[in-house]
């Protein structure tokens, strides 16, 4: 069996002797005999080489697509080598939440810098140290919107289905209603419907709109903001952080809270996790943020110091009255995002966003030129778009044969495509060519 226990038999004997004990079993005397188990019905332990073989063989059972045109909530971007190597530093990986500030300044500063970058991207005043993922970030954000009897949560039907589902689950917990805002035929949130819904609702707390939305379309955030605020509700916007290299920030557009899935910022697809939920907000909502927050202060010598702050919101102090139950978050993913944003830099990050956009536009053109394929919606999009497709199953199969992961099928006749800076013109042309041939 494998083991990471340094104690040898001799060590154990010496330790027991020093304690005046005869056996380790004595220490377990509190456990009623009748519930103890004899042994576990699992296989024997294995040495490292065999574990490596076993797990690597499972990895081998997955199919890696060399070319990916699928997003729908998880995005394949280039991860610079520096991001991988810097974040692999074993102090970063093996530290825990920086409770002891003096011995954890590095971790604390990295989070403070991350918070700043998230604020810069979103145009907000404050950000937390991360939550579990984009979907739970949305759910937590909706909770932030609640205020003195205002408990009704509005969610646009154009948001990511799993985000909607997660908000519903959390709201099932909170015991508050989730009201859906219908999707318009143009693929965007029906703001007229929202206006009408809110007109009759004095308990409207928050509105969730994702932009670019699930169908890739840029939503009218200023319009939504105006409606929300006119009716005393707050607007929370879900964003793809990469899009903020090109698109106006939610803060500048009037949103009160911006949140999203941070995975595109240097994290691999990894079959869905670990990912990174980020939440940022205007100053007025700062104390409603869930989870850890790092703040700047000074030390006994008057020098700059960083600490976990605003802890009066948190579960370990406030217990059942806390703003959230969050304890462990996604700190190492936040570090990864900060390193990613540093390595890309101001200009490189904007360039990545521009390339995603340009390549998506180019791809959309190539695909819509194929008979049977056409853009479903007219609106502006960032790097995702929906096309008709004569037979999604068939189309995806022919692409898969060539190692290409095609768009995500929305039923049998539509595909949701995603294009990033990683997709080369050659790949795009090849993909379009394969699709075209398949229609012949």
């Amino acid at each position, binding site marked *: 069996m494998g083991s990471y226990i340094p104690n040898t038999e001799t060590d154990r004997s010496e330790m027991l002797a020093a304690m005046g004990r005869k056996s380790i079993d004595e220490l377990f005397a509190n456990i009623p005999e009748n519930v103890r188990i004899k042994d576990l019905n699992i296989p024997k332990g294995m040495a*490292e080489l065999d574990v490596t073989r076993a797990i690597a063989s*499972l990895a081998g059972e997955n199919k890696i697509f060399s070319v990916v045109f699928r997003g729908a909530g998880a995005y394949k971007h280039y991860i610079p080598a520096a991001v991988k190597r810097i974040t692999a530093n074993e102090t970063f990986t093996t530290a825990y*939440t920086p409770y002891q500030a003096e011995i954890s300044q590095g971790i604390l500063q990295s989070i403070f810098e991350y918070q700043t970058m998230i604020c810069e991207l979103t145009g907000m005043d404050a950000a937390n*140290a991360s939550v579990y993922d984009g979907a739970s970030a949305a759910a937590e954000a909706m909770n932030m919107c609640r205020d003195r009897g205002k408990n009704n949560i509005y969610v646009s039907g154009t948001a990511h289905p799993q985000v909607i589902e997660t908000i519903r689950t959390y709201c099932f917990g909170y015991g508050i209603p989730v009201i859906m805002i219908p999707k318009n035929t143009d693929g965007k949130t029906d703001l007229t419907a929202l206006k009408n819904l809110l007109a009759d609702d004095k308990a409207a707390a928050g509105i969730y709109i994702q932009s670019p939305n699930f169908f890739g379309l840029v939503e009218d955030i200023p319009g939504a903001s105006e409606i929300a605020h006119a009716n005393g509700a707050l607007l929370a916007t879900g964003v793809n952080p990469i899009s903020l290299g090109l698109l106006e920030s939610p803060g500048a557009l009037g949103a009160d809270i911006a949140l999203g899935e941070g995975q595109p910022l240097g994290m691999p697809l990894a079959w869905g996790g670990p990912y990174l939920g980020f939440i940022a907000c205007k100053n007025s909502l700062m104390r409603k943020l869930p989870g850890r927050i790092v703040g700047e202060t000074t030390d006994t010598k008057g020098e700059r110091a960083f600490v976990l702050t605003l802890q009066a919101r948190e579960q370990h102090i406030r217990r059942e009255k806390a703003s959230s139950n969050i304890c*462990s978050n996604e700190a190492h993913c936040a570090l990864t995002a900060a390193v990613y944003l540093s390595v890309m830099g101001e200009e490189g990050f904007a360039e990545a966003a521009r390339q995603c956009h340009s390549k998506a536009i180019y791809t959309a053109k190539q695909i819509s030129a194929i008979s049977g394929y056409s853009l479903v919606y007219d609106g502006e999009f960032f790097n995702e778009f929906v096309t008709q497709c004569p037979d999604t199953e068939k189309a995806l199969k022919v692409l898969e044969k060539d190692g290409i992961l095609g768009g995500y099928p929305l039923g049998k006749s539509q595909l949701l495509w995603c294009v990033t800076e990683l997709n080369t013109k050659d790949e795009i042309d090849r993909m379009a060519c394969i699709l075209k041939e398949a229609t012949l």
Partner: protein
Amino acid sequence: MKLIFEKSRPGRGCSILPPCDVPEASIPQSLARKKPAGLPCLDENEISRHYSTLAKRSFGVNDGFYPLGSCTMKYNPKVNEELARLPGFTDIHPLQDACTVQGCLRILDLAASYLNEISGMDAMSFQPAAGAHGELTGLLLFKRYHQSRGDSARTKIIIPDSAHGTNPASAAMAGFEVVNIPSGADGCVDLAALKAVLGPDTAGLMLTNPNTVGIFDPNITEITRLVHEAGGLNYYDGANLNAIMGIVRPGDMGFDVVHLNLHKSFSTPHGGGGPGSGAVGCEKNLAPFLPRSGTELEVAGQAQSIGRVRAFNGNFLIVVRAAAYLLTLGKEGIPDVAKNAVLNANYLMEKIRGKFPPAYEGPCMHEFVISVEKLKETHGVSALDIAKALQDRGMHPPTIYFPLIVHEALMVEPTETESKETLDDAARTFLSLFDEAEKHPESLHAAPMNSAIGRPDDVKAARQPVLRFRC
């Protein structure tokens, strides 16, 4: 030290992306960003050194002894890291067709089969990303369960006052009313107090066992029986599983739902505060309510599910690491962990008890709580002072001021991956600190002296919050 923004200089950067190879598209002016996000501009050397310096101003298990109670800071094996970085895991899209992700699905199956056996549960969800996320998930299972039976009066969750703060917070998030019950003089559940609050409004009990004072509650089967009799469910907070895994199973103790912190008992790295994995297991009768999961965005079936608590299927790469650890330890290794974790805790407790008396008598499990209340009274040296002074002596301090029911508490959890020599060193350090506290209490108030900073002004941080840099 300087922030990365303060090291930024316009024009610097790294050369990551080649020029765009398709025609540049434009976006309507009205949608475009007016001012670029203020990201730092540095070359790779500066970035690399910046983060090297940050790492040096931090402390991880890899740097030394880290007996942070209730956090199980055990060694994070290297092989798990290598395996979690295999492209066959990292380069898989979560919405790939099921037939192309059989390896991922088998990792989940593998981990579930081991963890179900260890916890005595029937089904497992890996969607929760952390312990507290698991608690919320588990309590929503309770809620859905009672709802499914039309038992709408069950609105209260009973929680001992020694519990982790996440317990009441999770209960509140799940829409329950929290009923706190006091612990007995032995730190365990006060059966009378429990009985007094049980009733038709009882949705369930949340308990960690061994509890947060490091003691296994000997009445555990009686406790869970009482709750069941009252029509409630029992929730097992798995934060302390490291003490008992392979010895006794939460399921056999009478728990209906459990969360397991894979980043504690199952050795995945804490990452400076995450990502973790708070896998939730439950008995058969609750399984239909588990979070909806699958390889498609909108999963058909699972009609009774609480829904999902996040997108996709969880912190998968963390599960890969835990699976590798489970395969490594296996049948004999798992109980061996518990035994040595408990041995190490008791050994260290015994070695320092002369000066640092444990808050409760008898052997502890994987951790123990000491109170320096007397030292505070006699020499004005607090748990905080001890913690700060330990930083100067090459080890990470224990958890302090928790559990709340012990005054001036220090909560010490050595874990099984520490050697006798490390424990002997730590004991010497503790004892010498006591001497120092008696002789030069002021030096402990001044600690730490060798850290990156002196003690920070927490009050100022909270009163005048500076949560981001502005240039």
